[in-house]
């Protein structure tokens, strides 16, 4: 289990954490690593707290349990900090990345003594101004790439561009907004 990076996503049903964990797995796969991307299924509906996970490694990953001691936690909805223990088991050598307009220090005060790195990104503002709608998973995906360093930023950007071009062949107008959201997220994430 050495050299395995483990990431836990916290979100509400409908905010795209499952998709984000799969996109992260896809992107990191392209760098030649071994990946897992999987959601924790439950009877969740729109708005219910959910979790999704990533494991990233240089060697084949055999563990198939959920993740209890992640290196990184990503919180797509800051209201979850009140009802879910988002830092449970989170390694202090790692970081938590929260979607909020608050500063890292303001968020740290709400985390009940977590000693690791606290990072923030106003994903709502970025998503609404770049994409025109609220998709918190898009900027937060870029933020976790930046914070975790699981792959170089520029490789991630290139990879996302080519995958969006494939996916939205018939709707090229959506590509630019998404790419801007990724780029802004990488440069605006605070607390690094």
């Amino acid at each position, binding site marked *: 289990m050495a050299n395995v990076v483990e990431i836990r996503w916290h979100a509400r049903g409908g905010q795209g954490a499952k998709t984000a964990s799969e996109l992260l*797995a896809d992107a990191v*796969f392209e760098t030649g690593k071994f990946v*897992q991307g*999987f959601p924790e299924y439950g009877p969740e509906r729109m708005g219910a707290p959910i979790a999704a996970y990533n494991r990233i490694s240089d060697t084949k990953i055999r563990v198939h349990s*959920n993740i209890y001691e992640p290196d990184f936690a990503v919180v797509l909805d800051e209201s979850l900090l009140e009802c879910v223990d988002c830092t449970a088991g989170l390694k202090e050598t790692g970081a938590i990345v929260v979607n909020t307009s608050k500063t890292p220090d303001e968020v740290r005060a709400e985390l009940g003594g977590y000693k690791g790195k606290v990072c923030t990104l106003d994903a709502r503002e970025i998503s609404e101004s770049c994409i025109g709608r609220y998709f918190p998973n898009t900027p937060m995906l870029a933020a976790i790439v930046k914070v975790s360093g699981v792959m170089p930023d520029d490789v991630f950007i290139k990879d996302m561009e080519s995958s969006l071009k494939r996916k939205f062949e018939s709707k090229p107008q959506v590509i630019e907004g998404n790419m801007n959201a990724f780029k802004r997220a990488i440069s605006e994430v605070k607390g690094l």
Partner: protein
Amino acid sequence: MGIRTKLSGNEAVSVAFKQINPDVVAAYPITPSTEVPQFFSTYAANGEVETEFVPVESEHSAMSACIGAQAAGGRSMTATSAQGLALMWEMLYIASAYRLPINMAVINRALSGPINIHCDHSDSMGARDSGWLQIYSEDCQEAYDNFIQAVRISEHPDVMLPAMTCFDGFITSHKVENLELMEDAEVQKFVGKYKPPYHLMDKEKPMSMGPLSLPFHYFESKRQQAEAMRGSIKAILEVAAEFEKVTGRKYGLFEEYQMADAEVAIVILNSTAGTAKDVVDELRAKGVKAGLLKIRVFRPFPVEQIVAALAKCKAVAVLDRADSVNAAGGPVFTDVTSAMFGRVDGVKVINYIYGLGGRDVKTDDIKVVYNELLEVVKTGKVKEVYNYLGVREV
């Protein structure tokens, strides 16, 4: 040349369906297997396969349609989970008794109730004596590889029995991970064209299936079916050897992980085997002679081979992700112990029921089992044979 990619278990198996390009796929959606026919119906709609896709109104009809198609000389396939498999029940026995090599992906999910959609093995374990071959898979790669091999095994002239390729619901079915696919042409060449020795549409050799088989014939038919199941071990190994030549990936009746000098070992199947392998490595690093036997082929049950693999251990724990609720032990445990009885003495064997209804299994849970085995070796005593792992006792 293999294709390196990343897919979920359901995606990988639906790609196998596409590459095999069967004559008929008849299926009814049920979580967590739904995506397999869902992806496949897209391939069918896009003209990527020549398959007749039959969206039926129930799993009973799905299996019935597969039986009809296979009896008519076609290659048919389906996928299901839990209650869906249960609804197929009576038709499972018809398929195997008629010697129709239908292939089915079983995405393991707990049988309700209480109502539950998550992983355990109560669905396929309940069908273990229905005359179908059962092949279990640790991850997406194995699910894909096993499904392709199962087509060849089931259609082997000495076998002619239907086969279930089983893998864990959600854990494997919905997890995106690395795997290597075969090229379409490679799969086509490997599975070949289905050439049934007889079928209902053959006007040169007319026949009828499904006669009333009275007491002076039925028993002989069942005895012959049992022999085909027993003989399928040879075909399974032949197909595995050929598969290894094409892909480089090696398969046997089971996988032995650090078993050569193991004193304590776990017998397990499907995804938790992977989690347990990491625990074996951890224990080995501390000098503990721990091993693991991962059953791939559960039907037929490789009695002699499993006994030989476990004979040198001091204590063995068999882990069952299904409870037989029989006051005796889980299905894998009762098969392993009855195989060992009279063939090998002195190995202490205990049973753990684990992970029912999707209860997550962590490396720490597996450590509990190895610690108990080490305690059994130390004291020479088994406290309790039939145990539960990861359930709240208080």
